[in-house]
């Protein structure tokens, strides 16, 4: 069994966990508390949409980078193994 490879997968999981926590903190500490400058329905709606939109974009970026990291690592490892054979 390739222990280094297993450790690398555990490393990816740790990175995903840490970045998830950081992402949650960014969303809940900086984006969610954004205040509404007026009580107007339109302003409230626009700022709420902005909060959801920015949080969604952050989550999407996180998922994209996670997928990219795994894909890149997978093909690099597979090719590396083939070259060694």
């Amino acid at each position, binding site marked *: *069994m390739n222990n280094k490879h*297993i450790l690398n997968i555990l490393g990816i*999981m740790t990175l995903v966990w840490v970045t998830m926590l950081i992402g949650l903190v960014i969303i809940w500490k900086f984006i969610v508390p954004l205040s509404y400058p007026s009580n107007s329905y339109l302003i409230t709606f626009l700022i709420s949409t902005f909060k959801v939109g920015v949080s969604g974009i952050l989550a999407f970026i996180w998922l994209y980078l996670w997928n990219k990291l795994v*894909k890149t690592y997978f093909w690099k490892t597979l090719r590396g*193994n083939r070259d060694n054979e």
Partner: protein
Amino acid sequence: MVSFSDVIYAVLGFTVSFVVTFILVPLLIRKFKEKGIVGTDIHKSEKPEIPEMGGLSILISTIIAGILLSALYRELANIFIVFLIVVVAVGIIGAIDDIRPLNPKLKPILTALAGLPIILLGTYVPRPVLPIIGKTRLTIVYPLLILASFAVSTNAVNMLDIFNGAMAGTCGILFLALLIASIILGSEAGLILSAIMLGSLIAFYYYNKYPAKIFSGDVGSLAVGAAIAATAIIGRLEIITIVAMMPHIMNGFHSLASIGGLLERRQIKARPTKILSDGRLVANEDPKAPITLARLILAGGPLYEYEIVKVLFLLSAYSGLLAIITALIIAWGL
């Protein structure tokens, strides 16, 4: 805070579900062999026929333990009933899928709808507790997240039910992590529901481990996935469950991302793994094959089926540990 009586009920739930599953599986093996309800073990070179739909034992033991506990623990009776309704509903969807495969796009919709009883009967608190942040408020979004969580959890567990013992083992480890997290966070419902599922899964694993004597089928994997989602919501262990489910989520997410959508197993042309002449499995180099967790593990070199399952258990144990650390961060208010 979890009381001594909660622990007693958890031990009772664990014991009942363990014993019922342990007795029931040999009977199901005999019955399914007679009726020809069998599936091919595709990761063995000799391709043996193994009885399928063994997950019925998990479903039945959960029902018996749930009904017994709802009669004994009146304060949590409605929670046990809702839990049983959703798990049985998803189990029925799984049984139908075992008998006649459902459309891959319809299955997530049906499993998502199975979360409706939780919303309609109000057995949820739309204030998930997050690490570092604390209590949050998601009044409007939370019901939608409940439906999404059922679709994700059921199908993620189903997608990892590919090797002998993989589903029962990884989900058993997951429920053990949820049980410990429930004690840390004082979730009575989380503790008892996790104990019921843990008992059932350990007994089922005994028969399902390599070389498997029975498969769980979709009736088992979808029902266990629903039990995970229901425990997370009812037990208020949402973020902890997401962390504990990381191997399942990784498997499902990267598979779907690499093939570009929901497809039935039979529709995927390139298999993620291949069998070598010595019985070991190797990652398929075809770029069209989905990047499953097994294929990712096998990128490091060929392994026997039982070795891959060991790695899956290691990854589950590690994500369980991260989940417990997450629970500790919440409990300490960091």
